[in-house]
């Protein structure tokens, strides 16, 4: 802009003669030539092969056990009981035995799984009020209209927590027992805290501020969702910090699963005392289930999953096998490209004008 444009007329509007304005910037112009593409493909084959083998070895070191208990053995009675909604207040429990052939070494994670339960249905996912769950007093008393028909009870009192997601919370509970080799029956201790994301437990879900009131008094004027047995401030009678909206089980349930077959964390093995210091020893186990969640309404299955983990996650063979298959396909492609290049394009055979 410092140049004096002494001329007027047609040449006065000329842009500056800089590299940028005259579009003469230095440029790198890559081309797909044989000596870049072919080594690249062989290199990718190698990478995928190494990754596939490494991941396969990692996943093979995990152990997993799945137990379907919807209507198996003992649980058939409970299954029939739950068919009838008027029996909802009646307790029912059943037991299921299983055997671990090999010790589950390390940390063992206990999950409950559901099949054919679509938590990803749009109308279901919308039926919640995040403002209420983050502790806003105004939303506690007037839930969002998205929660309909689970926003107010027939008497007009607001429901806390509102919405279909909270209403359908999974309410089976489990106790695990180990039958030792000497005939003793040892209950397996499970840690039921720390099963949620840090951001969920501390940011997304907060109880309304209590000042000098107890939690029950803060929730005064609200009522529990229709399918619940206990109100939200009494969910955990043992730990006062696990009540209200910050209850771990509630938070885990409220994080909607992406797919109809999913599993959610229930607890982690407590390895403080023998014989569980190294994990779950091999042997016979019994799981006692307090059966409350009716599966037949969504024609689904319920299961219990015990799993050890690695840095890669649980036992999912897809990614290792996919990498190995990709490596094979890339090798085939690389060979095909080499043949095509050798026969047709080498030394610019085709490049006459």
């Amino acid at each position, binding site marked *: 802009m410092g140049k004096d444009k002494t001329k007027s007329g047609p040449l006065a509007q000329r842009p500056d003669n800089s*590299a940028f304005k005259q579009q003469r910037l230095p440029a790198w112009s890559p081309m*797909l030539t044989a000596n870049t*593409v072919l080594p690249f493909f062989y290199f990718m084959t190698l990478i995928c092969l190494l*990754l596939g083998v490494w991941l396969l070895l990692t996943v093979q070191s995990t152990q997993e056990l799945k137990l379907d208990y919807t209507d198996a053995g003992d649980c058939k009675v409970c299954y029939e009981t739950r068919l009838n909604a008027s029996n909802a207040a009646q307790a029912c429990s059943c037991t299921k035995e299983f055997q671990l052939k090999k010790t589950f070494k390390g940390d063992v994670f206990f999950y409950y799984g559901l099949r054919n339960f679509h938590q990803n249905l749009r109308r279901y996912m919308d039926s919640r009020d995040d403002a209420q769950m983050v502790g806003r007093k105004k939303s506690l008393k007037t839930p969002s209209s998205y929660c309909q028909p689970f926003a107010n009870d027939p008497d007009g009192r607001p429901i806390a927590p509102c919405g279909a997601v909270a209403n359908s919370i999974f309410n089976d509970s489990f106790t695990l027992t180990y039958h030792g080799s000497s005939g003793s029956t040892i209950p397996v201790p499970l840690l039921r805290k720390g099963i949620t994301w840090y951001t969920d437990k501390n*940011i997304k879900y907060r109880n309304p501020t209590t000042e000098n009131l107890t939690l029950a008094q803060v929730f005064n004027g609200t009522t529990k969702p229709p399918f619940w047995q206990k109100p939200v401030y009494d969910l955990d009678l043992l730990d006062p910090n696990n009540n209200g909206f910050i209850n771990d089980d509630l938070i885990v349930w409220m994080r909607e699963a992406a797919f109809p*077959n999913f599993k959610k964390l229930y607890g982690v093995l407590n390895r403080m005392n023998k014989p569980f210091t190294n994990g779950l020893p091999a042997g016979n186990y019994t799981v006692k289930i307090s059966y409350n969640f009716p599966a037949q309404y969504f024609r689904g299955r319920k299961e219990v999953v015990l799993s050890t*983990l690695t840095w890669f*996650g649980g036992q999912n063979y897809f990614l290792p096998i996919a990498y190995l298959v990709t490596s094979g396909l890339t090798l085939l492609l690389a060979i095909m490209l080499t043949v095509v290049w050798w026969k047709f394009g080498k030394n610019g055979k085709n490049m006459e004008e």
Partner: protein
Amino acid sequence: VDCQSESFRYPQLYSPGQQNLYFNKKVFVRCMMHSWYSSLILFFIPWAAMHDTVRDDGKDIADYQSFALLAQTCLLVVVSVQLCLDTYYWTAVNQFFMWGSLAAYFAVSFTMYSNGMFLIFTSAFPFVGVARNSLNQPNVWLTIFLASLLCLLPVVAFRFILIQLRPTINDKLRHKVQMEALPAPAPRRPPPRRISTRRSGYAFSHAQGYGNLVTSPPGWSPGQTFTLKLSQYSNWWCFLADECRCHCESVHMNIYRI
């Protein structure tokens, strides 16, 4: 400046556009098949990788919000690399926008999923914590890498095969330019004898000279080779058959870092 670009030297370059070779029904169908294939990969690879697994500390990763972020990130990476494949001239501006847009995606995602945004606009930003909790898992990045490979390797292979079997005019020209650029770096030579009677007056006017472009161009890194087309060089000859009566010869120089 006249007599500058390749399109003057090789007017056949205009013919593919005139013959509708760049966009016709066949090309459109090919584009649709490519996007159909990419869509299947971009959904089913994350689905299969995530549907039965958890984080390395046992907590949830197969939830709706994490899966959405994963599919979205796979898509962004694939689209960016596809754009890189389609960019033929990488100037500093291209580099900035390419890396900048990927960086902007991650910056915006982390901002949208931050605590502050959730607490201010609760119903609009319910994905709080998702980016932090899923993008620190190696599982997620390996899935993104696999999805990108599966989407892009076929494209590269297909283009390479086409260049070998049925090179277009563009491919032939770029090959020719590359072959011309291969000889050893030519030193600055004294002006050769001029054959022409008419040459562009602009080349010798008030410009300050482009010696600095030769000795230290911007954005240079060691070992990188540029094929620079220096249009305003002092020995500027342009050669144009038939149309223009001036005889010039452009100087293509392969410049290595000294």
